[in-house]
């Protein structure tokens, strides 16, 4: 797949869905609000992953690190400076996330393919342990965060973060930055020969991805009211965004949000009707998606031949 596919109609429909999501708090239903906030959070994480994994081609299994850092920023701001300001925590989280991404990125992004994925996975596991042992951040017991009286503020904040991420993804896809990312993905050596500094653009991609994840984490911590190691660095927050991006369409603009919506819908339906076996169904969904739609649902719109084209392509990667 080449470039960053942004089917104009799909992007507009997705943007419309996003706008619709902004009205969920008006339903005054806390279940719907929590669900909507969860969708927006995963969509943001997924868009963040899409920048480094989809546009740049460096599959990262460690974006949850930035999410956790963002979450702990809010926790620390409350614990030590008694600040409940969402804007301040998002700003500080972005700074912290980007700093971490740059510091980590320069050495780690030298790795390619499998090794980069494993390195980021290792970082994710290690960071959880390290932060759980820092007492200034709450140590093993975690930090209880006092929530704002107007709980819907967290929903609107998450929506704002998601909308900003979507806008950023869209703008990147149409800018020179986006072309540089795709050049690195397609052939890093050729890009270097043509004057695109791979290290600079890889680190930039990871920093953007980190900013999105950290912002989502910052708002999540406030909404959750409690933060400790396992909550901040939960493996779900690591894997789900990747599955959502794949389901929607890796490297597309609207893919992550579409994937987040669909997967959350599937997950909630399964969880509410089949509580014992919903993870089993989830595993089956992942297997089916990967085998039949390796390039995501949005690719269905792009492939020639419609359904028959999809079925014919199922065997494209076999031996």
């Amino acid at each position: 797949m080449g470039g960053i596919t942004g089917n104009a109609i799909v992007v507009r429909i997705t943007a419309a869905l996003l706008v619709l999501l902004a009205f969920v708090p008006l339903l005054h239903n806390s279940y719907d609000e929590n669900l909507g906030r969860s969708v927006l959070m995963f969509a943001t994480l997924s868009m963040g992953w899409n920048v480094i994994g989809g546009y740049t081609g460096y599959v990262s299994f460690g974006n949850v690190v930035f999410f956790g850092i963002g979450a702990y920023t809010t926790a620390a701001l409350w614990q030590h400076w008694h600040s409940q300001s969402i804007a301040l925590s998002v700003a500080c989280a972005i700074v912290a996330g980007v700093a971490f991404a740059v510091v980590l990125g320069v050495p780690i992004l030298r790795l390619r393919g499998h090794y980069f994925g494993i390195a980021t996975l290792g970082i994710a596991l290690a960071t959880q342990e390290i932060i759980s042992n820092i007492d200034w951040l709450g140590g093993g017991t975690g930090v209880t965060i006092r929530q704002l009286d107007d709980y819907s503020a967290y929903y609107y904040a998450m929506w704002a973060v998601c909308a900003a991420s979507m806008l950023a993804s869209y703008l990147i896809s149409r800018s020179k930055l986006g072309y540089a990312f795709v050049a690195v993905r397609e052939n890093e050596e050729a890009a270097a020969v043509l004057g695109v500094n791979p290290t600079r653009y890889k680190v930039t991609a990871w920093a953007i991805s980190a900013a999105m994840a950290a912002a989502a984490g910052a708002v999540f911590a406030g909404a959750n009211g409690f933060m400790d190691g396992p909550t901040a660095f939960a493996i779900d927050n690591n894997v789900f965004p990747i599955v959502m991006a794949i389901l929607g369409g890796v490297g597309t603009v609207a893919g992550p949000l579409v994937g987040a919506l669909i997967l959350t819908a599937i997950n909630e339906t399964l969880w509410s009707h089949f509580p014992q076996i919903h993870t089993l169904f989830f595993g089956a969904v992942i297997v089916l998606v990967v085998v039949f739609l390796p390039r995501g649902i949005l690719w269905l719109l792009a492939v020639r031949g419609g359904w028959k084209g999809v079925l014919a392509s199922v065997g494209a990667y076999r031996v």
Partner: protein
Amino acid sequence: MQLFWQDLVNGLLAGGIFAVVALGFSLVWGIMNIINLAHGAFIMLGAYVAYVMFTAWHVDPFLSLPVAFVVLFALGYAIQRYIINFVVRAPILTTFLLTFGLSLLVVNVALLIFHGDIKGIETSYSGSNFSIGSVTIAWVKLWTLVAALAITALMQVFLTTSRTGRAIRATAQDVDAAQLTGVRVAHLYAIVFALGAGLAGAAGVLISLSYSIEPTMGDPFVITAFVVCVLGGLEACRARSWAVSSTAWWRPSGRSTSERACRMRSRWSCCSWF
């Protein structure tokens, strides 16, 4: 000081299991470029095979080793040939996610069938041990190490001398060229994956003797297998498999950080032998 030697011996004995786990993992990774996240699920299935055979038919776990190997071999062959084969040449992300989904599937099916309570295998010789000086060695762990070494040696012999082993090594070098020389690659990939799964099953039987059995037991071993493969390399030859098992001792234990530091130090000293 006494703790150091005891730790050293414990590490040596545990290394055998990790070597078998890593051997299966590295076989699949090295030849098909697939990181098999379902390896832990296969280990768990092997352990449950041993458990079922022990509780239902009173078969000693060491005797159910070949049974577990065969069962997991068949399962691995079917999974590779009919599921993973569709994406075997796809980018790594696709196979990574597919094996992750399979892992979720298998673990949850096991959870449904066997439920989450922790089980164990206690044989007549489970607690017995002997001492060399101040170091105590459990008989079970010693026999586990012997079995692990035997399995590794058998794999080594198979890969170097048999015709299938040569075909496997040829496919690892160049898939298309191997296909041109008459190797049925789909079948061979399935054999390789099945071997990896079988080894995981055998490792699971060995693990069931010393560790507790529950549906998520395989995950820590897979993570260690990652580390072992990266540090020890991906080729499955005898010298390397020793390096693999030596680095396998370097695994974190869930105790206090100071204790962990002591253990790491002792195990690193073993690694330096190789």
